């Protein structure tokens, strides 16, 4: 067993230090950098949670087929591919920018 607290706990705690202790004490021109650090930690934490749900997909083939028009409206797999892409995009946004999923 590896020592506790684990990586997730450390990142959560480190992010709080950045936002609550460092950010208020920094000169204004460094606030952006501190916010970027906090944001990067938040993304990394959400990525840890989401990584178990990343579907096995042949993205290169799918991209090629879409470009070639094989999944255009009216083709048999169009609805299925549309739904697959929506799920895939939702998962990606849930890691990188969850606020957009909350806006209706």
């Amino acid at each position: 067993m590896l020592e506790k607290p684990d990586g997730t706990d450390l990142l959560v705690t480190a992010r709080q230090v950045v936002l609550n202790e460092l950010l208020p004490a920094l000169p204004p021109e460094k606030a952006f950098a501190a916010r970027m650090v906090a944001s990067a930690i938040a993304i990394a934490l959400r990525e840890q949670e989401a990584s178990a749900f990343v579907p096995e997909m042949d993205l290169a083939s799918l991209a090629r087929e879409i470009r070639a028009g094989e999944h255009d409206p009216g083709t048999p797999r169009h609805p299925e591919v549309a739904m697959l892409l929506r799920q895939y995009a939702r998962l990606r946004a849930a890691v990188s920018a969850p606020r957009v999923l909350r806006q209706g």
Partner: protein
Amino acid sequence: MTEERDTRLRDWLAAATGELDLRIAGVSRLSGGAIQQNWALEVECGGNLHRWVLRTDSPAVLAVSLPRAAEFALLRAAHDAGVTVPQPLFLCEDPDIIGAPFFVMRRVEGQAQGHRVVKDATLGGGRAALAAALGTELARIHRIRPPREDLAFLGDPPADAALAAIAAMRARLDAAGTPRPVLEWGLRAAELSAPPPVPPVLVHNDFRTGNLMLDASGVTAVLDWEFAAWGDGHADLGWLCAKCWRFGNIGQEAGGLGPRAALYAAYEAESGAPVEDARVRWWELMAHIRWAVIAADQAARHISGQERSLELALTGHIVPELEWEILNMLEEG
């Protein structure tokens, strides 16, 4: 800048102005510009203090941006067409003066930062007046039409700007090598609904909140001309109105700054031609795709080690929200 570089710059400016007693009283880096660097210059000559901006390239330059000499020529053309731009003054193509070619333009006061300007409803005399001012600026830019000898570096206009934009995005995705099925989905939908070509005009190609210097009276400068190209003027209206460039103030559809109707009305009044709303919406879809491709390319500079930067790294994480918005647009459309 180093002291030696300051001396070389001083000597060059003295020769360019013909003011041998010219003295650089101050040099400081201005904010913004992941691709270009802007330096504020305070210059004394002939008993006057001049406030100029020196514009040059960052160490890692995007291959798709125009060189400084071209940007200088565009500023001149825009200035002559009545577009509100900083007056271009001197161009130096010799890379040995400060390490890269540069040009000098008059410094303009105002605010450009996206998150700030969208919150200030007093800028430009109010939201409707500001949106109208933006429409007037765009119509003036689009009055610049090919062929133009001074803008020969832009090459021939594309036969079909919409299809050319789709091809350009696909080429960049292929060059980057990361399969992006959602962007492909958006591009294919765009291809199936592409509007027919219109006569080409000069398209600024980065006319958006963040690149527009504003104050209480209106637009003080249209900045960042390095992506300009011949194309469909509606592309500029679409880039400005795209939701991803409203800096969170999505109710104000003209760049988060003002209402779309005021933008269109002023554009029509200045250009004498109607705005095709459906065509603008098509370019808004393309705007999201284009910004996603640019963001992915910026992150690739970090990932490849070409320019390690937390800001570039986080820019890559904008791609998923753009993909989400592209799917929403296609469902609504």
